[in-house]
């Protein structure tokens, strides 16, 4: 399996705290990886570093074999990395359709002005995550948490990523909503989407990932299949604080 993403010796400190400490891992093309760890383990920080929303103190990130550490966020997205946020961040004054439109915008001022919005494609993306036409015309304030997560996912899928970073996609969702999102991810996985998923909901994560990486205090404790990792004594101690 060719590496799509490679993180090499990544370190980031906040004052005296080493949130990410010499972290190295890789994600193969078409692979789905779970990133788990107790609160404050550095999972979201890793995503922020991959997206350049935070700058690392040291370390390198490679995407499709290319060193991207110097690339700004929007360039990384254009290369094919996209992320969702732990707390959904929709554009509050826009409809669901317009939110998706932002994800589809070309990074070219001339094209933005001269080319029409592809409304049919917007609707198609919206429908692919389970929205109906009525919901596509609604604003985020009218949506439930599960819908907001789906909107986040739709906007992220609109940039046509080859690697998706999913941050706590199941947080705050009902069991029915979790099933909907899971089905969607299984479907995308079948179509070859690579993703790295951060979640505290290990049971929901289990069928969705090929491999799990467990981290604590910004360092890898262990990695392997889901069962291997959750049964690992060090992982259990890290979670339970023993």
């Amino acid at each position, binding site marked *: 399996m060719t590496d799509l993403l490679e993180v090499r010796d990544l370190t980031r400190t906040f004052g005296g705290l080493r949130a990410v400490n010499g972290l190295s891992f890789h994600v193969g093309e078409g692979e789905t990886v779970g990133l788990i760890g107790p609160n404050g383990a550095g999972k979201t920080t890793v995503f922020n570093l991959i997206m350049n929303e935070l700058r690392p103190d040291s370390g390198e990130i490679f995407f499709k074999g290319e060193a991207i550490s110097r690339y700004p966020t929007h360039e990384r997205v254009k290369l094919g990395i996209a992320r969702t946020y732990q707390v959904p961040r929709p554009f509050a004054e826009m409809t669901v359709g317009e939110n998706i439109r932002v994800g589809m915008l070309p990074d070219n001022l001339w094209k933005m002005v001269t080319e029409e919005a592809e409304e049919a494609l917007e609707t198609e993306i919206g429908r692919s995550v389970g929205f109906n036409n009525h919901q596509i015309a609604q604003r985020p304030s009218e949506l439930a948490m599960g819908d907001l997560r789906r909107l986040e996912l739709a906007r*992220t899928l609109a940039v046509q990523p080859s690697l998706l970073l999913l941050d706590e996609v199941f947080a705050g969702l009902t069991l029915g909503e979790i099933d909907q999102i899971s089905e969607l991810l299984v479907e995308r996985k079948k179509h070859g989407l690579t993703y790295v998923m951060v979640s505290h909901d290990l049971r929901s994560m289990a069928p969705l990932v090929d491999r799990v990486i467990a981290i604590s205090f910004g360092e890898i404790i262990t990695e392997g299949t889901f069962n291997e990792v959750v049964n690992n004594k060090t992982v259990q101690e890290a979670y339970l604080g023993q």
Partner: protein
Amino acid sequence: MWLLGQLRWWLLFALGMSLLPLFISPGTLRIFIFANFLAMFAMSWDILSGRTGYISFGHPFLIGIAGYTTAMLTYHLNWPLYITIPTAVVTTMIGGTLFFLPALRIRGTYFALVTLAFMELMYHSMQVVQPKLTGGTRGLSGLPTLVSGAVPNYYLSFLVMFAIGVGLWLLIRTRLGIALSAIRMDEDAVRSSGLNTTRLKLFAFMVSAMVAGIAGALYTHYLGSIAPRGIFEINFLFTILVAALLGGAGTIIGPIIGAYFLTFLLELLRPYIPGAGRYLIYGVIALVLYYYVPKGLYSLFERLRERFFRPRPDPQSD
């Protein structure tokens, strides 16, 4: 045909305004001229601050660059206006960008404060640096005018304001308008959608500076004079901001409505409350409006339009 359909309200507005000199006195027309200029200033502010949420307190700085450039070129070098005005617009765009570019990397209150600092800097610079060139505290007067008389000045100011208004309105209706609005709502999420927000903000700023440049240069030649106290005054800045916010920020039409409303409100209050007292009344009215119509007067028009001109639902859509 599609464009005409989109522009029907604008065309109606233009028709009404073009007939106005037939019915009203030159004195009232002069109030309209000021309203037209205020509308241009407010739209200039709106395309940057109303759309992207980067609140600029430095627009008088941009207006001042344009005003002083054209004033100095005509006053000292006797250059014709058809050269000095475009030169002033280009200078505003370049000069403004050089100063504002670093500021576009900071956000929120800091951006607003930095732009305010530029205005103050310009205010003091114009008085002490090369006063022979700038006219110092008294500024420059006796500048040539483009046209004379209330009616020609009214048509000129309206035509330019109208062209700017339609141009900006069409621009914000494209996907670029969506991108700029998205920056106001969550800039990080826009970046995470693969868009270079610095370039978008810079574009919005350049357009804003261009409009401020055009309006500033024409305003200077309408008045026939320029002085630092008139341009770089906090009241002038607030009038621009209040016009845009009162009318409805981020909408382009809102600032035009706000500019007309504000100018006429101040004029109507003049006979009853002379001097600065009327600013108190206008402040109270502005506060009441903000409280009850926080999205500006334009939102009232939108509500009326939706109520009476709502498009019929398409039976084909599900």
